[in-house]
């Protein structure tokens, strides 16, 4: 036992190391490269220099947001994959991201966010929740779960959401259009410090909350019926975890736009290295997801500088290829 705990602690330590390294690297590179040594002195010198404001006003908030959003999305992925015992299930493929995007889009067009910026995560969560309810009643309520049906319904809901978004864009005014497009492309550049704080808080809350269910998720690996035989209230667990993943996804999408496949790629990779015990998998995926999104964002803003790519482009390409790869491997 202690051997297992030791191994897990080592893994978490290594992952934290990677996360820190990626963050420092991301602090250094950009349109104006700041060498590591200089960062150190800039911090010591304090406010005033251009470098200081680049580090603290531009790059650091981005890194923190990348960590929170990447962590939240992989967390949602781990939870959903755990519930359905399937590697293809994640917020994006279940249409939860799409629903959240639709909610946020409506918010922007109707100008609700002018009254309070907090309405953005709320509308994201509402959209995500609606899709989850639809998925739940269309597929899960009908008794025995068919994973193909679930995925197809999710993908279709995703399509419907993006069609509705296009519809909204087509009929909206030019000023709003810019806002929507800018947001949909997905970016970790977030001017509101409040939203960044909320995202961080929510994803850390999600992390702790999901740990209360790590044993139940382990039991779910045996199937729902066997999980009930082990004393797990499967219906209640499913409902709570569904809401939790909608909350995480809704918040992540409302701040950073649709960033696909993080929840697909990260849990799978982490599982390959450390197995499928959720007691370590949850935290490990959270850390890896954070590091992955920070790395993707760094690539996105440097690869064809000075033009900045939406970070969803990078995660989408990597994730989409992996999705097809798993789909074929499983046959």
């Amino acid at each position, binding site marked *: *036992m202690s051997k*297992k*705990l030791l191994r897990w602690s080592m893994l978490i330590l290594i992952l934290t190391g990677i996360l820190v390294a990626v963050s420092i690297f991301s602090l250094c590179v950009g349109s104006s490269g700041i060498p590591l040594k200089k960062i150190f002195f800039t911090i010591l010198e304090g406010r005033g220099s251009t470098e200081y404001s680049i580090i603290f006003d531009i790059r650091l908030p981005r890194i923190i947001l990348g960590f929170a959003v990447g962590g939240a999305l992989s967390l949602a992925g781990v939870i959903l994959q755990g519930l359905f*015992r*399937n*590697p293809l299930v994640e917020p994006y493929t279940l249409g939860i991201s799409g629903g959240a995007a639709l909610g946020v889009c409506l918010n922007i067009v109707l100008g609700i966010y002018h009254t309070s910026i907090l309405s953005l995560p709320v509308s994201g969560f509402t959209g995500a929740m609606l899709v989850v309810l639809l998925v739940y009643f269309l597929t899960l309520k009908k*008794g025995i779960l068919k994973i193909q049906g679930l995925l197809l319904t999710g993908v279709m809901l995703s399509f419907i959401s993006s069609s509705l978004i296009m519809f909204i864009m087509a009929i909206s005014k030019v000023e709003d259009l810019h806002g929507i497009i800018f947001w949909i492309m997905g970016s970790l550049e977030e001017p509101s410090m409040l939203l960044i704080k909320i995202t961080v808080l929510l994803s850390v809350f999600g992390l702790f909350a999901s740990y*209360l*269910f790590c*044993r139940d998720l*382990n*039991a779910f*690996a*045996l*199937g*729902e*019926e*066997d999980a*009930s*035989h*082990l*004393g*797990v*209230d499967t219906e209640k667990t499913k409902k709570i975890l569904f809401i939790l993943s909608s909350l995480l996804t809704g918040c992540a999408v409302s701040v950073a736009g649709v960033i696909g496949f993080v929840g697909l790629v990260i849990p799978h990779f982490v*599982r390959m290295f450390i*197995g*499928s*015990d959720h*007691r370590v998998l949850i935290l490990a995926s959270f850390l890896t997801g954070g590091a992955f999104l920070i790395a993707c964002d760094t690539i996105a803003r440097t690869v064809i500088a000075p033009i900045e790519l939406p970070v969803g482009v990078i995660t989408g390409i990597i994730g989409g290829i992996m999705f097809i790869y798993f789909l074929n491997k499983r046959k």
Partner: protein
Amino acid sequence: MLEVKNLVCGYNNKFILKNINFELKNKEILGIIGPNGSGKTTLLRAISKIIKQQAGQIIFEGKDIKKTGLNELAKKMAVVMQFSVASESYFNMTAEEIVQLGRTPFHSRLQFSETKQDEKIVEHAMLLTETFNLRNRPILELSGGERQLVFIARAIVQQPKLLVLDEPTAHLDIAHQIRILDLTKKLNTDFGLTVMVVLHDLNLASEYCDRIMLLNNGNIRKIGIPSEVLTYQIIEDVYKTVVVVEKNPISKKPYIILVSEADRTGNPVIDLRYTEG
């Protein structure tokens, strides 16, 4: 131990079990037999609270199971279903990880790791089922028989009073069939476990069960010791097939011999040639 009174239940308003009454005695092995679709698995699901009962009462250890929490139930009753998802699961767990899950009902939400006692119980169960040397192997790499033993080990670590098995010998070779039922018998005699087991093989049921319950169309056709239930009249009536019932020369228990249609009539059964007119 377990008392079922006027049980009615099924799925989506379709009644599978119509009026079930029986009592499971302490420390007995009760075999459940019956044709496909007669309600065997449904009965197990009702007893383990997977499906709701529409009428009637199930009393387990002196308490109505409606008033027993799933967690409380899991500490006294362990169930091994026929098709465990784990054997096709994407999450490739090791045998030991599967067995450890049997301790789930004993852990609180805030308990992070297994105790020393948990480890001892897991090790003991794996030694007992002779799966200890497989403990680090992924479950998907194991044979059907080995998997079944691992799932039984998982049930043992729940330290139940009642062990419920759904066709534990399905798709296994004769050596594994015997191995699994010998193990079940051993759990019954050495550890005083009460066992309820669904079996398709009537002869295995005859050899290993103290009593047998024969289900047909959601009703109990007959319940009693093997020689009372396994008579050719009852079997032919329920299964609609011709059998001969002899005595097993060693155990003196009923032994059912199947007869093919060709032997019954002395003719090839179906004429595959198509003849006009």
